[in-house]
């Protein structure tokens, strides 16, 4: 479904939230809601989006919205979807889970896996800022290799997080759900088209959005979109889709830009040395090799 920016609604269903300047999460959610519309029920676990939108008495969602427990985004959504079916409104509404990377790749993974396996009629957005940002920048399963966080400190011997980022998209695709995608706030048309596509599909749908975080990553707020774009151009973030059992990579840079410019722009990577950049590029190349193979095989 082609998105025309000048036809997007002016109606804002999320505003007044207290996110940090430059936060990518509300960019993604605000855009998503422009496509999904008023008949959306959002469900957020404990996370930045919840803490900045849903504190009494100031509500920032102008649609039905609930908070739930940290591990329970997908399971709460699944219950809402079951009720929507019984109420006869399931074809008219979207049950939208919105959770961060910790709430998705770590503590929320079991519930998400269950909902995917049952093919519950929910749309799940993971905004991935690559650490537990709401609690103050602690390492998550989605924190990339080499990143400093408050719980993956650096010193002479330690590189920060010394294992690779968990591949959430792979895990979700392994459930063979009707639709899964990765997206970026630097590619709004791609993001909106994926949301629009997901809206019209019944069953479990999942979109993984990279969400740069000025506070946790250590960069100036105005660089959020630039960094998100660099991550796609240097191959550290991919734009892909999984539908009808087929994997498609949407953006394939002919040559990857060096990772150094992207990493050096962020305080969380400032301890990295030349050999670390080389190691990260090696990991990237391996990931892309796997991705290309899956694109041909799946």
């Amino acid at each position, binding site marked *: 479904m082609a998105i025309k920016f000048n036809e997007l609604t002016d109606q804002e269903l999320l505003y007044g939230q207290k996110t940090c300047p430059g936060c990518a999460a509300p960019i993604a959610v605000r855009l998503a809601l422009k496509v999904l519309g*008023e*008949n959306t*029920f959002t*469900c957020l676990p404990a996370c930045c989006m*919840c*803490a900045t939108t*849903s*504190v*009494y*008495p100031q*509500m920032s*969602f*102008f*649609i*039905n*919205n*609930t*908070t*739930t*427990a940290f*591990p*329970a985004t*997908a*399971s*709460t*959504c*699944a*219950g*809402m*979807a*079951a*009720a*929507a*079916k*019984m*109420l006869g*409104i399931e074809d008219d*509404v979207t049950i939208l889970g919105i959770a961060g990377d910790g709430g998705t790749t770590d503590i929320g993974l*079991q*519930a998400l*896996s*269950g909902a995917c*396996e*049952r093919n519950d009629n929910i749309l799940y957005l993971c905004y991935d800022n690559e650490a537990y940002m709401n609690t103050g920048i602690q390492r998550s399963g989605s924190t990339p290799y080499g990143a400093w966080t408050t719980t993956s400190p650096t010193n002479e011997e330690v590189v920060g997080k010394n294992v690779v980022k968990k591949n959430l998209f792979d895990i979700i695709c392994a459930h063979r759900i009707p639709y899964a995608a990765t997206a970026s706030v630097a590619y709004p048309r791609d993001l909106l088209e994926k949301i629009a596509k997901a809206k019209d599909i019944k069953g479990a749908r999942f979109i993984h959005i990279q969400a740069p975080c000025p506070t946790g990553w250590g960069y100036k707020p105005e660089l959020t979109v630039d960094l998100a774009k660099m991550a796609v151009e240097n191959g550290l973030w991919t734009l892909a889709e999984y539908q009808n059992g087929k994997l498609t990579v949407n953006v394939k840079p002919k040559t990857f830009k060096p990772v150094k410019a992207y990493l050096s722009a962020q305080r969380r990577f400032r301890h990295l040395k030349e050999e670390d950049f080389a190691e990260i590029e090696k990991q990237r190349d391996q990931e892309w090799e796997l991705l290309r193979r899956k694109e041909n095989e799946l």
Partner: protein
Amino acid sequence: MTKIDKRFLSGNEAVAEGVRLCRPQVIAAYPITPQTTLVEKLSEFVADKEFPCEYMLVESEHSAMAATMGASMMGVRTFTATSSQGLLYMCEMLNFVSGSRFPVVMVNANRSTATPWNIFGDHRDAMAMRDSGWIQLYTESGQESMDTVIQAYRIAEDPRILTPVMVNLDGFSLTHTYDLVEVPDQEVVDRFLPAYQTDNKLDLKNPKSQCISIGPDFHTEIRLQQQDAMDMAKKVIADVDAQFGKEFGRSYGGLVQEYRCDDADYVLVVLGSVAGVARTVVDELRKQGEKVGVIRVRSLRPFPNEYFASLKNRFKALGVLDRNLSFGNQGGVYTETKAALFTPGNMIQTLNFIAGLGGRDITKVNIAEMFSKLKAVSEGEAENEMQFIGLRWS
């Protein structure tokens, strides 16, 4: 007159019949012994289209309660069931459900909690969830379990209450024990329990946020509302039980049920299915001239403080049989009963008996021993305040 439908059912099957008659629109459950035969029976009912329902086979108890909450906040009637480790795993979601006032009804098949690993009955599971903000009712028979499920929806969904209800029945001794159970007609249940209507829901016509954060500035006032609802539930539980009696011909005493207590000197306070054997012992001791009685606590939350405070000097000694223990203190029912008895002028002596842990039988001999200890302490003999009864060794 409608004909009386009596069937030979296990406790779990009786509960399943009760749930069927209440017609929840969403059920989410995860299997755990000894709850399994209940959720199996409900799956059959839903598969056979006995009532329209989305039956969610979730991947954990945490998700069972989260899904139940998600459904309830959309304004539909919900049900789930669990036991023991499953109940503990739900703990986080129990507090979400009660705090946001969703009238979920859950059956808990009371079972010991690991470790030592044990699948048999005691009350340590539900007692650990005592402060989760749920109404906790305990039943004595399959019939009462079925009837209490029907009552539970009336209580939970009352706009003055809007508090979830946990119906507790003893693992195996009730869940897997067969008895003759009268199954009421659907139309009678429908009359007693109208369709669930609420404003406390997400609504396309009137969007709102649920389960929100509330900081120090308003938090205490929200908690006061929960406490007020629990206080009101004392009246509503009693009223609903009385109305159930009028409609169905069976009632269970509301919050507490006395047996031969009117002229008793020594009484034993119990929870759950052990009340049956306790009454048998009371009858036998009465024949021998002992003035003994049984008080069965049916509602642990809200706790019948006013009832115990009113006892004053009705009895010489009161024992509390606990199938649970708060390590480092005493049995859970005992500490609460003793606190409630603590009123000016109260002279009733109290003892706490710990028995029936991990499914061990509580025998007639055990119960008789408890009564003899109550008599002894009231006659001035020294007794330890808390005692394990029926120990193999000490």
